[in-house]
């Protein structure tokens, strides 16, 4: 009874203390709007120059041109199905091992509401525009301050809609959603290739959803989203290309295996990565 009474008295004191500041103090509803900066860039495969990679079929691919229309991008508070095992961050070794064992025996289920294929929960930030990213350019595209909400961010989704407005006439895209040109070499075989990728409007084919990101959105945070063109042709069989252009380059046709592999890879987890870097205040 004494504890209850003390709690009651404390509540009364808190309530009375709040009265003078009501209307002048913070709203007290939680959360905080912030602004973060966003940049998009292309990236090389690990250990390779920017435009060079080797795929699972033994083709060493050298890209001469690679670009894609990207946007909008949404950042979510919740983790996606592709997010890494969170137990890896636990401090104790035993704790990590027990958590991993538990997770391997009973994998976590991710139930999603309604007909959604992905629901990352509350949106922490968004970039509603669209841009054509030259993935072979060493300079990231920067889009300045974007609106967001303070808090943990666990996943993000990219829209890969057809380029709109002036972007549709971007020469790098040649009228497609994405475009690639280069050569693939395997032993003595060498295939020059060229082609564009268009994504169907049905279902979620124009979305890369639930991609992992780990960090905390705060005021002034910088987000770098990186597109990895090396992943685009990771499973491509360039020997299957058979339509040749006058200059000798093979065309990535809609019915080719290369196009199918590209279509799958362009929305895959491997094709994107993102990082949150806090902008630290300058030291005096």
């Amino acid at each position, binding site marked *: 009874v004494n504890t209850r009474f003390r709690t009651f008295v404390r509540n009364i004191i808190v309530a009375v203390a*709040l009265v003078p500041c009501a209307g002048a103090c913070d709203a007290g*509803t939680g959360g905080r709007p912030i602004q973060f900066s966003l940049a998009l860039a292309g990236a090389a495969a690990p250990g390779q120059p920017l435009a060079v990679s080797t795929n699972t079929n033994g083709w060493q691919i050298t890209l001469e041109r690679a670009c894609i229309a990207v946007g909008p991008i949404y950042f979510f508070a919740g983790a996606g199905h592709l997010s890494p095992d969170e137990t890896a961050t636990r401090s104790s070794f035993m704790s990590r091992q027990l958590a991993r064992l538990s997770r391997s025996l009973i994998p976590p289920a991710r139930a999603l509401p309604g007909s959604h294929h992905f629901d990352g929960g509350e949106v922490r930030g968004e970039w509603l525009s669209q841009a054509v990213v030259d993935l072979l350019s060493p300079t990231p595209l920067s889009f300045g301050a974007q609106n967001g*909400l303070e808090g943990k961010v666990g996943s993000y989704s990219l829209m890969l*809609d057809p380029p709109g407005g002036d972007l549709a006439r971007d020469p790098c895209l040649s009228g497609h959603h994405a475009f690639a040109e280069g050569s693939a070499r395997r032993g003595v075989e060498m295939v020059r290739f060229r082609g564009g990728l268009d994504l169907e409007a*049905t279902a979620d084919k124009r979305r890369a959803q639930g991609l992992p990101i780990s960090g905390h959105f705060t005021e002034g945070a910088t987000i770098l989203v990186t597109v990895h063109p090396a992943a685009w042709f990771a499973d491509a069989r360039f020997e299957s290309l058979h339509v040749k252009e006058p200059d000798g380059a093979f065309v990535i046709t809609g019915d080719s295996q290369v196009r199918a592999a590209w279509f799958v890879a362009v929305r895959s987890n491997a094709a994107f990565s993102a990082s949150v870097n806090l902008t630290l205040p300058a030291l005096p």
Partner: protein
Amino acid sequence: MDANTAGGDAGANAPASANAPADGSVPTPATTFTPGAVSSPADTNSIPEATSSGIQVRVRGAPARPPVAAGEYRIAIGNLAEVPRRSAEDLLTLAPGLLLTSYGGEYHASGVFLRGFDAGVGQDIEFSLQGIPLNEVSNAHGHGYADAHFIIPELVSELGVVEGPFDPRQGDFAVAGSVRFTLGFGLRGVLAKAGLGSFGRRRVVALWGPSSSGPDTFAGVDFEDGNGFGPNRAFSSARAMAQTELELDGRTKVKLLAAAAANRFDSAGVVRIDDLEAGRLPCGPAPDEQAFCLYDPNQGGAGARILLSSHLTRRADRTISDVQVWVSSRSLRLRENFTGFLTDVESRSLGLPQRGDGVEPSYHALMIGSRGSLRWSSPDKAFLRDGEIGYFARHDDGDAVLRRLRTTGGIPYKVDADNKLRISNIAAFASARVAPHQRLFLTAGLRLDSFLFSVVDRNRPAMDRVGSRLTSDATDAYGLSLQPKMTATGILGGGFRAVGAFGIGTRSSDAQALSDGEFAPFARVGAAETGLTWSRTWGEDLLTDGRLIGFFTHVDRDLLFDEQAGRNTLAGASNRFGALTSLRAATPRSFDALASVTYAEAYQPPADDPSVAFVKGRRLPYIPRWVARLDATWRRAIPVRDRPLELVAATGFTYVAPRPLPYEQLSDSVVTWDAALRVAAGRFQVGLDVTNILDRRNHDFVFNYVSNFRGPEAAASMLPQRHVALAAPRALYVTLSYHQPAGDSP
């Protein structure tokens, strides 16, 4: 010359008369006021008598019910009817701390805030007219939707307000409190009034009170239309009300009431504040063109209602018994769009442009009901002072449908909900008041409500995993809610009384949230308040009534606004506390003022700890923390060339401090100042009302949520954004009235 100049008052909030008993009950001896004073509460069964100088009110028989809480107000409208107001609903702002916000058009029920509650369009306040409940159970727009626009404002003589669930007579929806409209027309003869105002507003009213009867007998018609203060805000309505009081014998009376109304209105809905500030709205570039612009022209609504009531009252020496029966038919269809192009996932998954998030809630219901009570009192100085038993029964049979509309053309494309409703609410209550000491009165009451829901959901799929099936499901739920109430009143002397009250209240469940066999289809609220009241008469006729009250309320299952559903939906437990002070001062002939200041806080505790606490969890957004209101009138007769010229000046002032919004934001404050000036000569009166004199662009509706008004194919912003509906700008309204007294020839 006022339509509401009925006789005297002995109500709890109306300034007490000089001979008011100390315990707050209505005085037994006759009390006589002259016209212009606050009017008499209907439940005193006052017997008006016409005299050559006006109306006399004699109160006789058993005392009226004493107040159940310091927060019980019986606000006689009286001269405060002169303060500019557009509807009977606007009279609600006379209740201390009550805030109205409008977003859906001229005759859309306003959102109501009271004592830390966002009562939506009626979900948390029990509304009634002459004892007839107005809340519409499981209305597709909002559970408890209560629309008072069918009431002719000149015929409202009193507002009975109980802030909190402290009265055993309070039933379903009395969570934040209850409001009772009482009708009366003090003038005898014919009052004809015509008005013309800004934005094409036109109104014609004709009211009649036969000379052979008192203020409870009247008839009136009211026609109104206008273009509204911006595009897509036109409105038109017709209203008719008639009531007669028949005296069957010296002790038995019966009141017969009939009312009918029909209206139609357009609505501009809400706009995103970022579009407004950037001038991106699809209207002209001028600030006001942007301010009053809209996205979706398919918004608006139409409604109709007819109701009949018969109320029999019989008085004996120390008892009053009454029985009332009523029947009401109601139809309502609204069209709203809160989110633009956001929720049409079917089109998006097919790669098609979204069709739009227009919602069309419609509601058609027939309500029949009855209530009755027996109240008795003991001789003075008895331990058991008085008591009451009563019953309430209501049955609603109707349909509630919620459809989705295309933004282009407003064509329905999907049914979100289609329910056939049969809902019964049967209740009984009892209360008794004892006096253990000559200065201490204790009242204990108990109410038992039963709710039976029979709902047929006609929007089920035609196939399931087993195979084909019928597209309807039936759900039944039944529950009992026991609601104790207690009041303690201490007489402190000098006109001061200390009143403490505790009560449990109930709100029935929304049929859309029911599961089959649910045994508790209602939310419960626990409330406590303590207050100091003060009544005093100064000199011969200055009457004052003051209150200082603190309150706390806990709700176990609160409802909060869901913009995607376009209605309030279940949102867990919540706690509230606050304080208010009010003061009314009036002289029967010349001056009347009512001022109040209310402070309220509301918190939503974490879902895993829905405990009762003052401050736990996050503050509930949108709840106004400070609300101040002043209504004042001044009346004076000036002889001009030996002819009396009556001047009436009136003003109303509202201040709402910045409201907390999600993400640590605060809304803008709201300041509204209205005034009226009327001049009466003989049987004619000319009046000028000016509303929003400061011409402020007040935000009536403020909500933060995700929307996409950029277009059906545009990338939607998924960050919550502030949405607002602007209140009316400064407007003028000129009236010309003519009063033909009964028995006189024109």
